[in-house]
C-alpha cells in the first residue's frame, strides 16, 4: 500500500479543497466592496424625504396673493428665529407615515444651518456668513461628533422681514448679523440616522 505512488489522491484532494476554499474567500472578499450600494439607497430615501419636507414647509396652504401675506411657515420661522417650532414642524413632517411599520430609518437626526449674504461684511471676512439654526438634539456641538454619514438637503428661502412686523426689529436681525433687507437665505439641513 505505502509506496512511491501513494497518497497522490489525498494530495490532489487537499489541493482541490484549498483551491476552492481560497476562491470562495476571495470572491466573498471582493463582493463586500459592493455592499455600500445599500447605503446609497437609504441616503437617497433620506435626501428625498428631507427635500420634500423643506419644500412642503416652503409652500403656503392658501394663495399668498389673495389672502394678503399667505403664511409661508418656513419664512416665518426663520424671520422670527423660532428654532423650537422649526424642530417640531420638521420632525412632524419627516416622521409622517401611512403606517408606523413602514419606516425609512427609525430615528432621524438633523442639524440645520442658515447661510446668508452680507451686503457689507466685516473686514477680512467672507460675504457669506452662517449661523446654527436648529438641531434635533439640544446641544448643537454634541451632534457633530461621531455620527453616521449624513446627507445634505438645501432650500432657498426668500425672507422679507416686512411680512412679520418688527418689534422693534425682526428677531432674525436682532439675534444674528443678518441685514434687514428682503433677501434670499440658504437653509441647509444635514440629516443622518441616529
Amino acid at each position: 500500500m505505502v509506496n512511491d505512488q501513494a497518497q497522490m489522491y489525498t494530495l490532489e484532494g487537499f489541493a482541490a479543497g484549498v483551491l476552492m476554499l481560497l476562491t470562495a474567500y476571495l470572491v466573498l472578499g471582493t463582493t463586500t466592496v459592493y455592499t455600500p450600494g445599500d447605503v446609497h439607497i437609504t441616503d437617497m430615501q433620506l435626501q428625498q424625504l428631507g427635500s420634500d419636507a423643506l419644500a412642503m414647509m416652503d409652500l403656503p396652504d392658501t394663495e399668498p396673493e389673495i389672502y394678503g401675506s399667505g403664511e409661508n411657515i418656513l419664512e416665518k420661522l426663520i424671520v422670527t428665529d423660532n428654532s423650537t417650532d422649526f424642530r417640531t414642524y420638521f420632525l412632524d413632517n419627516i416622521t409622517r407615515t401611512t403606517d408606523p411599520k413602514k419606516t425609512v430609518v427609525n430615528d432621524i437626526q438633523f442639524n440645520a444651518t442658515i447661510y446668508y449674504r452680507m451686503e457689507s461684511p466685516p473686514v477680512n471676512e467672507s460675504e457669506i456668513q452662517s449661523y446654527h439654526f436648529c438641531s434635533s438634539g439640544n446641544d448643537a456641538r454634541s451632534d457633530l461628533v461621531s455620527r453616521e454619514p449624513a446627507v445634505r438637503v438645501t432650500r432657498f428661502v426668500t425672507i422679507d422681514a416686512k411680512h412679520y412686523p418688527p418689534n422693534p426689529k425682526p428677531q432674525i436681525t436682532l439675534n444674528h448679523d443678518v441685514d434687514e433687507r428682503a433677501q434670499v437665505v440658504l437653509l441647509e439641513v444635514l440629516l443622518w440616522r441616529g
Partner: protein
Amino acid sequence: MERLNDEGQWIVLMGFMVCVGIFFLAIIIAQSTVVGQTTSEGVLEFPKNDIQDLRSEMIEIAKNWEQYVGDGEADDIMKDLVTLSMVRKNTVVKYAPDYSSDPTFKTGAMSDSYNSYTRIKIHFNNGVTEYDETFLLSRPKTP
C-alpha cells in the same frame, strides 16, 4: 511522480472547475449590484431637488419683482441667490446677459390680448448637470 501525467489528476481538475464556476457566479452578482448602485447614486447625483427649488424661488421672486425694484432690493436678492449657489453648492446660477437694465427678467416684453408675460431665464450648472429654462410668467392685463 512520473505517473502523474497518466492519471490526469482529475480531482484537482474538478476543484478547478468549481473555482471557475464560483468566479463566474461572482461576476454576474457583481454586475447586478453595479446596476443598483448606479441607479441610486444617479438619483443622488442628479440635482432634481436643487433645480426645483431654484425654479420655484425664481418664480416667487419674479412675481414680486416690481415691489423689490421699488424697494431697491431686487439686485441684492439676485446676488444672494447667485452667491449662495456658488459658495455653498458649487453651482453656477446665471443672469441672462442680454437684459442689461433688468438682468434676469424683462417685464412686459411679450403680451397677448389677456396677459403680459415676464420672461425668466434660468441657468443652472453644477459641473455635472446643466439645466436651462426660459419660463414665461404671465399676468392678466388690467383692463
